């Protein structure tokens, strides 16, 4: 299969701290790939480099075969890359609908009129189960809805590749299952997904491939079952109970 | 005091409110030496001054001068029994509010004439409005020369202009040097704030220096309301002029004096444009440090007006100074003009008042009032020209007096024939 994204020997230093070092992996087009690893492993940092928020210290990022290393973050939307934030960043004084409409307006659909954008946004809200809350302010909703909003806004830009940073943290198992279903549906509609998650149940059920990071380095990658049964992964990340 | 804070000048709120009352026709019985009290329909005159903002201090002084005159006039029967009533407007020291207030005075309050606007910048704006509505306006103390060069028909100026100010300041220097061979005044420099007035002072100082054969060494212009003037004083020290010409608002004047003292800079002679130096707070704040400084002013307490000065002092606990004396005088000019109209059986309206002001000539004293307390004996609004600048309806005969702080008191020193004392030279800063 074709790779939509290729990460080559990517590194990032923060004042001497090697947050990410020499990480190489690829994301297959149309699939869901997981990025796991203990806290501080460098997952979010990797995401930030892929989405242009941070400039890599070294290494390359290829998107559809094109080198996009170091591009400014706002160029990514038009290329078809969208992301969510681990620490949610809703547009606080705008309604849920406007939050998503904003994504639609500046996304790849290229809407010029706000009316069309709002219609499209409503469609997205329906798909993500937020339609009833479209006139709410983000601050008035609970965590799961805010997480959904992050997702909906990213989706509204009509991405080819979606980067999800811990969208399931803080959800209880049932809510997690709903989120899993939603992500699966998005993927089935043709969006490639790269996700960071600590919830192994979700990762196992969604991902075709997982990449495991530790202390900034890639430890291993492979099918979820393989990786999760790797004794080293169990030792440094999963712990005994889960296995 | 608990109702307000006024200890240093004793002017507390109760005082102000009585004054406000006496503006009215009904309540002027408080005045002392009255023969008859005016009770008829009041004649309304507008007064625009900065009552709030940075210049509120000066605005308040004007108010005292005006109220004082109004009280005198009304206590003596006003204009054939009709009292004068002043309607105040607050310019906030700014053109736009000044304009709106002017419009209020003219169109809402229906005043027959206006006086005011302390600052030249604001006067520039409001005099246009007066012209537009054809309401006569006299400025008591705006000094920018350009004000009277627009050809306005309804605008009159009592105050000596900047040109005259600096002219007289130089004249004082020249006279002194001519009389005393020990005084060498060959070079001058200017320290002023970087505003319209300060800049004009510098320009005129250069002009008059050349005219009087002196060398103009340069000017040091700082931003008004300075936090610190030490480097300015250093620059002056370096220029080291024989005579230092200054023009500062009162706050900067205090700071400049203190800083000069602190930096040990003592020019042989320092002469100021009245402005800040004639304010009561100046001497209060600087005390002995002011000694030796000369300043040109529109009014000085002396033989001429001692009674008015004393009564004013008693009432407001503030000295009558150049600005308030001019404001006081303008009210009397109005009164005289109105009286003339009444005597001639003419209707009291703006148009007639304007025509009257154009021809009025007051010599020595006001009818039914005191003598002219300003340092000249004739007031007349005439047209003139100087160095290419047109002066319309300006009191061209106006001149200034120069005083010197000696032993923490203000002593008149020029013109010599009317002076109380001799100029101390070199200036004895303490």
């Amino acid at each position: 299969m074709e790779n939509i994204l290729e990460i080559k020997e990517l590194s990032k230093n923060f004042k001497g701290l090697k947050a990410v070092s020499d990480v190489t992996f690829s994301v297959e087009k149309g699939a869901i790939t997981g990025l796991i690893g203990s806290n501080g492993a460098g997952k979010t940092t990797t995401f930030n480099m892929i989405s242009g928020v941070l400039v890599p210290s070294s290494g390359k990022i290829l998107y559809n075969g094109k080198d996009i290393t170091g591009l400014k973050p706002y160029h990514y939307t038009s290329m078809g890359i969208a992301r969510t934030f681990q620490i949610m960043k809703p547009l606080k004084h705008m309604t849920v609908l406007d939050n998503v409409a904003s994504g639609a307006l500046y996304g790849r659909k290229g809407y010029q009129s706000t009316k069309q954008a709002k219609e499209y946004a409503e469609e997205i809200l329906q798909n993500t189960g937020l339609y009833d809350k479209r006139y709410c302010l983000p601050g008035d909703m609970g965590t799961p809805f805010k997480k959904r909003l992050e997702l909906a806004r990213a989706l509204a830009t009509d991405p080819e590749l979606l980067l999800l940073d811990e969208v399931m943290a803080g959800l209880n198992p049932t809510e997690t299952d709903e989120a899993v279903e939603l992500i699966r549906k998005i993927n089935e509609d043709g969006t490639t997904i790269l996700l960071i998650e600590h919830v192994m149940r979700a990762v196992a059920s969604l991902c075709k491939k997982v990449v495991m990071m530790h202390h900034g380095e890639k430890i291993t990658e492979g099918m979820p079952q393989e990786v999760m049964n790797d004794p080293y992964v169990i030792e440094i990340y999963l712990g005994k109970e889960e296995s | 005091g608990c109702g307000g804070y006024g200890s240093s000048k004793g002017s507390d709120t109760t005082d102000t409110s009585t004054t406000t009352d006496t503006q009215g026709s009904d309540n002027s019985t408080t005045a002392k030496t009255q023969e008859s009290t005016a009770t008829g329909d009041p004649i309304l005159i507008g007064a625009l001054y900065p009552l709030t903002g940075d210049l509120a201090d000066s605005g308040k002084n004007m108010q005292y001068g005006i109220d004082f005159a109004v009280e005198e006039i009304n206590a003596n029967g006003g204009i054939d029994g009709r009292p004068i009533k002043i309607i105040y407007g607050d310019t906030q020291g700014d053109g736009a509010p000044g304009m709106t207030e002017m419009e209020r005075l003219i169109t809402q309050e229906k005043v027959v004439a206006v006086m005011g606007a302390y600052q030249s910048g604001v006067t520039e704006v409001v005099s246009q409005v007066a012209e537009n509505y054809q309401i006569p306006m006299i400025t008591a103390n705006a000094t920018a020369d350009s004000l009277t060069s627009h050809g306005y028909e309804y605008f009159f100026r009592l105050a000596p202009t900047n040109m005259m100010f600096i002219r007289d300041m130089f004249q004082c220097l020249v006279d002194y040097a001519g009389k005393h061979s020990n005084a060498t005044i060959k070079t001058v420099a200017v320290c002023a704030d970087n505003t319209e007035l300060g800049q004009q002072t510098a320009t005129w100082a250069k002009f008059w220096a050349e005219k009087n054969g002196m060398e103009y060494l340069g000017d040091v212009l700082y931003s008004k309301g300075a936090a610190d003037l030490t480097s300015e004083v250093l620059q002056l020290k370096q220029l080291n002029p024989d005579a230092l010409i200054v023009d500062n608002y009162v706050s900067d004047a205090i700071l400049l004096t203190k800083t000069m003292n602190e930096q040990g800079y003592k020019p042989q002679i320092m002469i100021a444009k009245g402005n800040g130096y004639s304010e009561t707070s100046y001497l209060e704040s600087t005390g002995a440090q002011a000694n030796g400084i000369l300043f040109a002013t529109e009014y000085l307490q002396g033989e001429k007006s001692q009674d008015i000065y004393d009564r004013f002092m008693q009432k407001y606990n503030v000295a009558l100074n150049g600005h308030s004396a001019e404001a006081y005088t303008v009210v009397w000019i109005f009164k005289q003009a109105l009286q003339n109209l009444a005597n001639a059986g003419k209707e009291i309206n703006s148009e007639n008042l304007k025509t009257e002001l154009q021809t009025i000539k007051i010599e020595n004293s006001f009818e039914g009032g005191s003598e002219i307390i300003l340092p000249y004996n004739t007031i007349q609004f005439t047209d003139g020209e100087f160095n290419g600048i047109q002066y319309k309806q300006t009191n061209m005969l106006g001149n200034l007096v120069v005083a010197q702080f000696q032993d923490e008191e203000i002593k008149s020193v020029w013109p010599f024939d009317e002076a109380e004392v001799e100029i101390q030279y070199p200036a004895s800063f303490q």
Partner: protein
Amino acid sequence: MKKRIGSRQILLLIMLFLVALIPMFIKTPYILSILVMTFYTASASLAWSILGGMTGQISLGHAAFMGLGAYISTLLLMNANFTPWVSIIVVFFVVGGISALLLSPCFHLRGPYFSLVTIAFGEAFRNLLTNWNYAGKGQGLLLPFGDNSLILMRFKSKAPYFYLALVMVILMYLLVKYIDQSKLGYALKTVREDEDTANAIGINPWKYKVIATFISCGLVAVCGVFYASYIRFISPDIMMQDQSVKFVLPAVIGGIGSAIGPLIGAIILTPLSEYLNATLSSIAPGANLLVYAVILIVVILFQPRGIMGWYENSKFKIKLNNWLDKLDGRKKE
């Protein structure tokens, strides 16, 4: 749905019509002049709100850009006999361009830092103009009165200025409202709320701040053209920081971030301050501004989103809407 909009529009038009009739009935120039100042303040506040309200960059130096507009148009008029009508366009582009250019390096400064920079620019401009011979230095520039002249935007009576200001405020309001609802408006508001999010959905925050600054400062400069034509005297003092605050307060009190907020704020504040000024300042100097300050403080403490914020959540709005709906219903019959 369509009909609902109908009754609202009609109501608005009626109101507008009534306002436009004011000079026919009220001949007192004082009242008109207060209205002119109200419209002028509202316009400047609306212009400010594009940068300050919509984009969230609190500028406290807009008086300097207003002043720049006033200076440019006055200089053009005095030296090249340039009609202010054309100056409006010139000034919009020149001042918009200058301000965007100067402020663009400062756009990564957030919150109060940006405000400080705008204060600093304002003061620097004022200082420079004070020393610039060509612009009349501290003395400023005077536009002489003369005969009525539409071309020179010079009128003897208030009424023409009233209509000029009215048109200015209406256009300004429509423009701000249009931007608010437009694609651009969404970008500006997104930038205000969160720059990281803006980046993540393809909005270049820097670019949109430049655009907002350009429009906002350009428009406030246009207000400056009006100011110069109306007051007919300008000096560096019009660029002082407390003048900038006068543009900001209507928006704050009316409600930041909506088009109607600055308008409402100015309609309340300007006449109020004129009234207080006329009644209080000679009796108790300071009392007038005191009342003003207290209003500001009370609004911020109890209704931080301003009067419009209160209105949005109030029963009054519901009642008004119900009433309007009923009006529509009746018309339908």
